[in-house]
């Protein structure tokens, strides 16, 4: 099938101080084509699409749109040329309703009533029903994404860029989205689809451009390749999946019963009657779409958010009312999702950051005085054991790349001989090789008898390392079930199914 070419990118290069984000990148998209941009975190996918969307200017190279030179100086220019983009992180105002949010993104918004009618008709036409009068703060992540997509569709784009759209969706919601994208493609809209999820790309995309360290390393037709082949092209090496010893379950180490706490975060999600137990040597995976109570659960388990005494029991002792240090001394360590500002202080050195959570269990403080030499040794140990790439331990935490800081933060917690480990998003933003080593380290601790709770939005990760699986949905936790034998459909339903959005495609 030969369709007219829509966008061509030729020899584009973009360098930032200290890093070349894109080096001589070329590819082309035809009209109506669904084109995947595949690569690991930091491979340069985001920089590339930001150049197409006019957010970043290339240092070298040229782009053409329908044969004419295309160099948008700002997103407005890109939108005027028919390029639209749905970002991974939504830019919506929670206190405004859907129509108001859409109007804010438009150059000349029509009167509200007219706009609401258009939102309704466009959203239904593409199988993404939306109520224009609803407050965005009340919408699920999947519905918020719909707002962003509908906002783009109202501009009648020729090219729609989607950055990691499925990271906030349940499997059922992904199916609905794919139907919409296929419909758009059939109508001639090209889609540039950014992802590192290989099965999705095989199911959806016509062509794929694979990036590694800023360079195009391959182009392929995803349907003709196996996921493994594409993974190896993307990573540039063969991967060894984490190995796990046959774990023997011990006594219950962490028991959470009827845990209900209000969220300290505005528009956060309160936890409602969360109950589960984790035995020594067991890994419990907790899935869920972002914003369904994951942060609150971590805070409630780490002790930053206090609850009733008996709602959290550590080795049989009521600990719900205690703070972070009391829980640490009872054997529980926690690694929050947000690295800079929560798990680590950005302007403090790695040594100081090692002290931050390690002071108690590593005995780094005697009678109130800090043993800096021991702290230094502890920090250096984390750096070498977890392969943290840094010029030294006296570097400020913010100078490390996200992946390296993640290794440091996870390593700091795992190096404290923990009995209970709670981790939110252990491999978020980490490259595949480092992610595998973090998962291996978690499994090793479990094999040594630690009880582990992994909260993650990466289903593949949970299925790989967890013994039992539960899902958070609007602050409620499903009863945990053994991973063995779970189907993807069952998992999707545990995550809340399509959140009542199933009706979407009945007409198509």
């Amino acid at each position: 099938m030969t369709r007219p070419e829509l966008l061509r990118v030729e020899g584009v290069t973009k360098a930032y101080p200290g890093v070349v984000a894109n080096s001589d990148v070329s590819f082309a998209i035809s009209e109506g084509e669904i084109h995947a941009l595949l690569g690991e975190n930091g491979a340069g996918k985001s920089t590339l699409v930001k150049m197409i969307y006019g957010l970043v200017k290339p240092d070298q190279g040229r782009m053409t749109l329908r044969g004419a030179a295309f160099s948008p100086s700002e997103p407005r220019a890109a939108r005027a040329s028919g390029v639209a983009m749905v970002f991974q992180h939504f830019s919506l105002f929670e206190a405004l309703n859907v129509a108001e949010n859409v109007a804010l993104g438009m150059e000349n918004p029509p009167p509200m009533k007219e706009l609401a009618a258009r939102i309704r008709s466009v959203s239904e036409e593409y199988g993404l029903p939306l109520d224009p009068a609803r407050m965005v703060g009340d919408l699920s992540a999947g519905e918020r994404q719909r707002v962003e997509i509908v906002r783009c569709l109202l501009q009648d784009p020729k090219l729609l860029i989607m950055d990691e759209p499925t990271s906030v969706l349940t499997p059922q919601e992904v199916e609905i989205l794919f139907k919409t994208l296929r419909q758009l493609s059939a109508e001639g809209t090209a889609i540039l689809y950014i992802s590192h999820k290989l099965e999705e790309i095989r199911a959806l995309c016509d062509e794929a451009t694979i990036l590694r360290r800023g360079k195009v390393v391959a182009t392929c037709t995803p349907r003709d390749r196996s996921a493994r082949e594409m993974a190896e092209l993307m990573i540039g090496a063969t991967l060894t999946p984490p190995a796990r010893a046959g774990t023997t379950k011990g006594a219950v180490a962490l028991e959470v019963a009827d845990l209900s706490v209000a969220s300290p975060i505005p528009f956060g999600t309160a936890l409602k009657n969360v109950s589960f137990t984790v035995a020594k040597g067991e890994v419990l995976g907790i899935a869920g779409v972002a914003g369904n109570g994951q942060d609150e659960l971590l805070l409630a388990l780490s002790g930053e958010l206090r609850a009733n005494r008996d709602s959290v029991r550590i080795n049989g002792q009521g600990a719900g009312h205690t703070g972070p240090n009391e829980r640490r001394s009872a054997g529980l360590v926690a690694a929050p999702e947000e690295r800079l500002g929560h798990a680590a202080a950005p302007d403090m050195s790695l040594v100081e950051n090692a002290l931050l959570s390690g002071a108690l269990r590593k005995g780094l403080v005697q009678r109130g005085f800090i043993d800096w030499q021991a702290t230094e040794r502890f920090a250096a140990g984390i750096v070498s054991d977890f392969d943290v790439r840094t010029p030294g331990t006296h570097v400020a935490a913010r100078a490390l790349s996200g992946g390296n800081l993640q290794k440091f933060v996870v390593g700091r917690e795992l190096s404290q001989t923990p009995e209970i480990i709670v981790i939110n998003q252990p491999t978020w933003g980490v490259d595949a090789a480092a992610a595998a080593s973090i998962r291996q380290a978690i499994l090793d601790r479990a094999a040594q008898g630690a009880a582990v709770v992994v909260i993650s939005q990466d289903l593949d990760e949970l299925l790989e390392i967890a013994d039992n699986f539960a899902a958070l949905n609007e602050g409620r936790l499903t009863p945990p079930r053994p991973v063995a034998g779970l189907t993807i459909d069952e998992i999707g339903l545990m995550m809340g199914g399509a959140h009542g959005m199933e009706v979407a495609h009945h007409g198509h």
Partner: protein
Amino acid sequence: MIRLEKRPSPSRFWQASTPVLAVVLTMIAGGLMFAALGKNPFEAIRTIFWDPLFNPQFASYSRPQLLVKAGPLILIAIGLSLGFRAGIWNIGAEGQYIMGALFGAGVGLAFYPADLWFIFPLMVVAGAFGGWIWAMIPAILRTKFNTNEILVSLLMVYIAQNILSSMSLGLLRNPEGGGFPGSRNLSQYPAASNPELIAGTGLHWGVIAAFMAVIAAYILLQRHILGFHIKLAGQAPRAARYAGVNPTGLILLCMGISGALAGLAGLFEVAGPAGQISIDFNVGYGFTAIIVAFLGRLNPIGILLAGLLMALTYIGGELAQFMLGLPAAAIQAFQGMLLFFLLAVDLLSNYRIRLGSTKEAI
């Protein structure tokens, strides 16, 4: 085109050298201002920075003044710097200084004319308590009702000033003072006085307390877990909570320490250099100490040096007014320049300046 580029980690070289650069820039800009006022800039700067210490004619008077003025500034600034590091803004040290003086002097005068060894130590405790209790008011309002401690502590200064006037005119007025406002002179009451310890140096117990506070704060911030928590709470409040820091406790502690140290400064001043409670007892040490704390980049050693420098510009400034007829406003502008340049060049420790524009292709 000039661009600023964020450094990956703060530059240690610039952190150490920006205060020196700021003093040099202040001398240049201040010199230009003095020249514009028709004075010889070199003479003016020499009068401010050199004469108070080394001029054979004035130094014998002005040199002891250096410690007399620097002592309370350093003592108050050390206390404030702990709170500022934790993101707790006590702006009311002036009020805490007044209350420390009132409590301390009140205790001393209550014993008049007894001659007991414990009177002065008891006054020291009362002075610290007076400052502490005055700082606890904004602290507790903040922790219980989430009021803004900046506003409350500042407004408490004006209340303290009115109490001071009332005390000098009423309760603490010298019964033998012929009806003039002001208390008995404590320097004439040996059991309650804070004399110059070594003649001709200006050294009194308050200066010693200031030096001790510098050392204690240095150890606290460098070696003690509490100091670490103070820094952590200021830089990354959520990380501090994760580390197990109790924010309420930290507010009470930092406000309490800064209040107690300001109260001590007030007590040592009223029992020593000032001698008595009077309507115009406070001369702004509590506010100037805020500048000193930042001039010393909230670092105890820096505060020590900044306190001495600030005291020098005060003494030198007075000398320049007196000798060269420079207007008081010019001296204040000069002191303001010092703070301005210090904050401005502070940028260099976190940013690098790049000249020239970036090349950007289409």
